[in-house]
């Protein structure tokens, strides 16, 4: 997939602009993206860490892009999600990799992992289901 087409699509989604991530790698099996830390992403006002919902939203946003046939396809319908929070979401650029586990005619299942500096030390992992029809 063409990164420019992906970026153009992301730029048209208000909430994706709010998150402010960019996709840096995209192929048939996985997408990679990074999101700079912003004050509007803070969850804990004392520790100034990422809001858990922002981490989940970033992972969901990237997961939803990986299941598209092409960048002109309508957005998939999210069915549900599970997020495992593994480490504190300290301020810093957050990276996410979304991998399609299974994509059928009606349903898709996507696994995600988010990390700050070291992919081997994930901040969160996610599992997302989408309806494609």
């Amino acid at each position, binding site marked *: 997939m063409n990164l420019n087409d992906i970026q153009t699509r992301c730029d*048209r989604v208000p909430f994706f602009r709010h998150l402010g991530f960019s996709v840096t790698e995209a192929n048939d099996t996985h997408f990679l993206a990074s999101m700079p830390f912003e004050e509007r992403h803070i969850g804990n006002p004392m520790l100034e860490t990422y809001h858990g919902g922002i981490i*989940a939203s970033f992972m969901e946003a990237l997961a939803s892009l990986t299941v598209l046939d092409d960048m002109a396809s309508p957005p998939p319908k999210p069915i549900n999600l599970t997020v495992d929070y593994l480490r504190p979401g300290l301020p810093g650029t957050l990276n996410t990799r979304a991998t399609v586990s299974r994509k059928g005619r009606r349903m898709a299942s996507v696994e995600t992992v988010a990390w700050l500096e070291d992919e081997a030390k994930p901040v969160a992992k996610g599992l997302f289901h989408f309806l494609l029809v």
Partner: protein
Amino acid sequence: MSDAKDSERFAMIANIWNSRAKGLIAEMGLIIERADPQGVQIRMPFNPDFCLDEEGTMLHGGVLTALLDSSFGLSNFLAINDVQTMATLDLRVDYLRPASSRADVIVFAECYRQTRHIAFGSGKVWFDTGDRAEVARGSAAFALTRGKGGLLEKLNTRGPGG
């Protein structure tokens, strides 16, 4: 503690939580409608920045997830007397209907079980449209540290911008 004192304390916790909000919670412009140990009800006004489309016809599901996560935080603070810190262990959200409304979003969240180390939360989300049809349902588990000098007390003693 009398009922009146309790309700004052609950109002104070809710007020600190809201007034000291930063980042996403501040962006969401939340209005607390109910706050006690049995649950919290919070209203989120429509915000076009949280939508999937420029026309603002559909909210992104992630916003509802974030709203549930935030509400679990407040309901834990109200239900657990000596909570010092808490960390979300996991979060599960089912999207039950398309989030296609420009009405305010309302969330109800409760801490329905607490142990020394863990709290369990459950919540539901609907649009303020009259039929209260559920748009999302979520549940989460939290790791707790108990003790004196909790997060809210710290927030309360720090000055604005501190």
